[in-house]
């Protein structure tokens, strides 16, 4: 069982968290978005092997945040609250 650092609550067990997706997957607004771009937003993921930055939700406090971890060895290198600059990032 992994330990994830919620920026608001501190280290908690992974079962308290919900995966929100890869960070940086910006939502394209509008109906003139191409089908390819929309499909990229919906389905296409980098799924990197190694360092990755992800959005997670801490279910018990309800906050979404960004977490950096390694998809190979599961080491977590840090997490941060989604600031104004991070909306959608």
């Amino acid at each position, binding site marked *: *069982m992994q330990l994830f650092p919620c920026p608001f609550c501190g280290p908690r067990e992974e079962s308290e968290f919900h995966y929100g997706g890869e960070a940086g997957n910006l939502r394209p607004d509008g*109906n003139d978005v191409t089908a390819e771009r929309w499909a990229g937003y919906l389905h296409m993921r980098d799924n990197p092997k190694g360092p990755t930055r992800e959005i997670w939700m801490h279910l018990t406090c309800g906050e979404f945040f960004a977490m950096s971890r390694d998809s190979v060895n599961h080491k*977590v290198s840090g997490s941060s609250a989604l600031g104004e600059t991070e909306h959608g990032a």
Partner: protein
Amino acid sequence: MSASRLPNGGSDIDRARPLTFTFDGGRIEGFAGDTIASALLASGRAVVGRSFKYHRPRGIWGSGVEEPNALVDIERAGGRVPNARATTEPAKDGIVVRSVNATPTALADRNAVLDRFARFLPAAFYYKTFMWPDWHLFEPRIRAMAGLGVVDRNWKPRQMADQINHHCDVLVVGAGPAGLAAAAGAAAAGHSVALVDDSTRPGGSLRHRAGDVDSVEGMAWVDAMVAKLKSEGQLVLSDTTAFGLYDHNLVALNQRHRDGRPDTLWRVRPRRIVLATGAIERPVPFANNDLPGILSADAALAYLRRHGVLVGQQIVVATNNDSAYEAATALAAAGASVTVVDCRRDCGAQAGAGIRVLAGRTVVAARGRNAVRGVLLDDGTNLAADCVLVSGGWTPTVHLFSQAKGKLAWSDDLAAFVPGEAVDGIGVAGAVAGTVSLSETLASGAAALGPFGSSSTPVAHSTGAEATLGVVGLWPKPKAKGRVWIDYQSDVTAKDVELAARENFVSVEHLKRYTTLGMATDQGKTSNLNGLALLADVTGRGIAEVGTTTYRPPFTPVPFASLAGARRGSMHAPVRRLPLEASHRAASGVFQEYGGWLRPAYYGSGDAEAAIQDGVRRARQSVALFDGSTLGKIEVIGPRAADFVDFIYYNTMSTLKPGHCRYGFMLSENGVVFDDGVLVRLDEHRFIVSCSSSHVAAVHARLEEWRQDRFGRDAVYIHNATAQYATLTVSGPNARGLVEALDLGATLDDASLPHMAVAAGRFAGDEVRITRVSFTGDRSYEISIRADRAEALWTRMQQEGCAFDAVLLGLESLMILRAEKGYIVIGKDTDGNTMPHDLGVAGPRTKRTGEFVGRRSLFIEAADDGNRNQLVGLAVREGEAPLATGAHGVEKSGGPLRSIGFVTSSYRSPILGRPVALALIERGAARHGETIDVQHLGVVRQATIVAPCAFDPEGKRLHA
């Protein structure tokens, strides 16, 4: 084999406390401190089990968790323990012990005949043979013949198992000399320590091997160290196995209790882990090396010194290393005649007095039937023996290190894999790290602490004899004569390994699965390396190149009761309960689980179907009372609340006037309908999202996601108030009359409170919210009140209801009422493809200009596909029974029969006097009036596509 109890000796046993138990019906005597295995040996029992596949007679091989053969079922106060290792289970007065996989007893097993057909039962025999006509034909009898212990189907735990979360600075696994040195070092450096060991007593190898530390005898030092740790408040656990090492260095422990309590599961999160897990002696490969009376040399020494048991009178020791000589010397001193067969030419100097050493010789075969009678050497010599001790070298117990993704490195010096490159936060010490002498072992304990050690604290020193090893490879050879056993527990021979290699199962992982080598409870503790070495030889590779299989938790079996803890029975997946559950039960409510909630399915003690149909009838005729408290009540508040709900919903919501409600869909970003429900606007900046009962948590999470991602924390605030309110619904032609009788202080005429409007009222001093929304198609009022004050209102509603012949409505009746109206349940009447226009709600898709969740997906190519499944009703012919839910509409046009959709809801309508059904059917909206085939379990019926709404299509009753 003629093992016996010596008149003296045995550090573990208390001869003043004799005990008796039964084994396979026979009486066994022992002493307190005996294991079941030591008591069986002391009583001269050679055969203690039958092998898994061939039903070969097997004896005790080891003295601890490595035991592959002596698995037993134990009946004792507190229930039956299946597949226990006789070598780790304490003997207790009065317990009933049975060998597993043997009928009726291990000695007289009636399936023993299987062994004579062994050459017809090679590896993968079952895969290859019982294919035709069907494996299931053979499976029951094969399973009855194979397999291990018997589960007690009537077993009930007397109490739930404890589960403990523990944090400490340093966790040391293994309380041998290395582990004790590590624990002492960490404690001296001021750290909190947990020291755990799977044996009944700390000490590890010092429990039966010579060694002096800091000028005192080994066990005296062990006892002093343990006492010191305990006095300092450190945690020291015996009978506790670290069985799993997981991500982020979580270690799971299983602690066994000797007082009948269920095992305790520990989840330990240390900052540093020291693995001092020791090493396990390997078997020596020769033909018939599985005969009872052939056992690990180290185990023989343990039985001698811990239990005062002499394992034989005429003993042959087969070895490739120095470690067996301590056993040989001690057994000779205890009165046995001992011959050492050492495969090394240069070894003689070690032998103690009275021991014959045959250097440069190997054992090639053992003789005997139910017990070993002698051995044949490679030079043709026959030696008589009633016991053969083997030491094929030592395999470091790297299971936990390997579970931590640690890489192993091959050591030629040790002829074994040892931990390779260090893993973060984990140190290894002692025999698992490849140390041999006590000096090295003690030093490695302190060194394994890394930053948690202290250079200023004195390290314990070995002050007595130092062990040596000098091991050389003595591996199984291809094409050896006879049956050389590699894995005792899974009944795998050298020939099976060779066969697998011939059939090209040359990856070690494939070998494992094809032959079952290293599987089951044993996990390759004794067998792994011999199997790998043989595979390496057959395939012309080095052992290092072949590599090892993945070690998986648990290291030893863990009872499910321990893993489950409190999560059993009703606590396994706890249901959510209504605040008024007691009232419903008092009114004969029959409860079922719906989407995680325990709710009344219907009321009454008679026939369920009759009660459900009666509820529907009376709801349509007069009035029904229904507990809808599970409906979501998520408040959306803030300056941008209106923008927010516009974005969240498919339908435009910002045009809703305060005091009114609107039905709408929420979509996923892929355009699929995710939830439906009514949005209430209380004022300019405050809405209540009334989502489906089973969707509340998911909807809440989505609202939070969009709030935080797109709108910001100061623009909208979201509060899930679902559990704070009970919602009690009054529905039916007489609903208004009943609600008026409640005196809620609200004006209820249709001008003041029309359909889809909300009003405030009071009941007994508490505010209530009255919402006119309907899931039945009849005039309905949903009254929400503080959950803790709901009971009085519910009671009052029932009292006033008497005058109206009000009926208490369970969920099953409600489902019929809504299906008659064609009202859908998301996830039941929709699937993962259903878009809003498939449900006949196309307006927002074409008319809305603003952005909302899922919008772009409504315009992808698939969304415009003319063959989409669409919501319809299905009517059956007069007098026919309802269609089966899940039945498929089928069509045969040119090609093969294919599905054109399926029935999603189907009920008998008492008001209409016929069945009603909802379905998702290809192009269904344009096919009203068409008759289609509907197939269920091979039976084809006809149904006519109709509008989803079968009752009151004009909706007059909403206002009646």
